[in-house]
């Protein structure tokens, strides 16, 4: 099993660097994973990551891209409620890359 080390503590990940245990997640781990994805976490990134975690807590899955864009638009301003904005923040795709930073499991399937 793969792992990452942040501030002297070891966290188990899968082959692709997704956290294995959801409970392991914290801001430092998120920052660390973001760095490995070449993303510099700004307030805008955190808005998305925090929303993903909230949604996951309720539904046990990441939100659909459309649900995510709508929610971000409603919460943080209409100019942020589109997938271009989200791709701007997470170039590898908001679904997978933002989930990884948020410590959520990778969405699978034909997506």
């Amino acid at each position, binding site marked *: 099993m793969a792992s990452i080390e942040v501030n002297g503590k070891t966290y188990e990940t899968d082959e*692709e660097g997704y956290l294995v245990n959801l409970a392991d997640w914290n801001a430092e781990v998120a920052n660390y994973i973001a760095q490995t994805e070449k993303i510099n976490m700004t307030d805008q990134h955190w808005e998305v990551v925090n929303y993903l975690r909230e949604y996951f807590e309720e539904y046990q899955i990441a939100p659909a891209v459309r649900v995510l864009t709508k929610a971000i638009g409603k919460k943080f301003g209409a100019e942020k409620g589109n997938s271009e904005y989200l791709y701007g923040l997470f170039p590898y795709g908001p679904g997978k890359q933002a989930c990884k930073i948020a410590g959520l499991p990778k969405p699978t*399937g034909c997506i």
Partner: protein
Amino acid sequence: MSEITAPAYRIIPIIPALKPGAMESARSFVANDKIQETIGFPGQLVDNWHDRAIVKMGELLGKYRSLKVYMDACVHCGACSDKCHYFIGTQDPKNMPVARQDLMRSVYRRYFTLPGKLFPKLVGARDLTREVLDEWYTYFYQCSECRRCSVFCPYGIDTAEVTMAAREILDSVGYGQKYSNEIIGKVHKIGNNLGLPGPALLDTLQGLEEDVKEASGFDVRFPIDVKGAEVLLITPSADFFAEPHIDSLIGYAKVFHATGTSWTLSSKASEGGNFGLFIGNYEHMRKIALRIREAALELGVKRIVVGECGHAWRVAYSFWNTLTGVGEGADENDRFAMMLQKQLDHRYKQPVHICEFTWDMIEKGALSFDKEANDKHIITFHDSCNVARGSRMGEFAGGQFEIPRDIIKAVANNFVEMSLATTREQTFCCGGGGGLLTDDLLDLRVKGALPRMEVLQQVVDEHGVNFMATICAICKAQFTKIMPIYGFDRRMVGGVHQLVSNAIRLGAK
């Protein structure tokens, strides 16, 4: 991860120069013991893998007469060799369909033919060593089972079936693929490939009702688990989740709305896809398909309609009848299959593809369109492999090619064909089918898309094409991901029912 780049377009599309071993390190992640055991396969490579693999191979050769014919019939004429998109894109000779099959054929000769048993070297027979097994894993997970090579084989060898058999043998000795097998576990447990639980699905559908109301002014419903509905829609779960997939889901709902059809989705059968096909495992394929039968019986529906998913339609069209009793030919001793046979309305085709449903309604005059709504698009159509070569639509040969195109022409003004050598039955795979739509194979996926991207570029240059429609969730996800690497906008890809959705009149008629 090193930067993945697109290969250069070929100036003259001829057989590329060989690069032996070019893709030998492109191996998708192996499933861990948890994933394997969840779906009943050994967790790790078993100690006596060699003997068990040979026994399994013998079992498959006995069970599937076709496999034995395919092992024996090949004369190495080479007609298939340059027909595979992965060979064209990677130049690895083991991605020539004939060479890929020979990874298994050489082992078959050694253990199942007399000359191979006696004089292995003379007939190209090989022992099944660990190296050979690893080679199987590597290269049988570089085949998307698209069957383009089979179209050109003078003996009609279905190379996809060879790949499926190899994967089945690998799984049986504890050597499975993470991507496919994790997904199969999720369908059995939660009901769909994504692992989307009922409440999340409900929340998403409610959100869609609001969105469509806001955009169109009409109360288009996205019903779920409605008993007594006429139609049960079975669609890939990506339609609930991903872009551009969800726009086609909106299209289906609008078609049902505009035609006054009562319909429902099912939280139990919230997946059209069936990865059991990809790994060649009949039991999993059946178990996945049975969720649909259970849902249909519980909800008491009269018709089953399948959404835009390539291999879902292949499984539905070609296998659902004997697997579940949807369509003609169910096992007479299968009580539930017989119940379903009685329940379904046989004045209609069972199952029916959403494109057949929509086209039928268009022909009857039950739908009307503002075609100008699609005028910003110059559209081409990418035939999805499993629809093109594994199924049919309508009442005439080639209906699976004509009907989606007819729909596009009915809802839009600008339609252009790509090169005929790459469409219809000769269509190229998107590069992500058959269980390869995973990030760990992205390099292969990008390379495998080369021949499709070459001809897309042609129609972009010559006709200004800016939209490629397709009717498969895998194609949509694959193109959205890899097209930016070729310099195209990811929003150039979408579904046929996305175009329907843009143009359909909800109030009139």
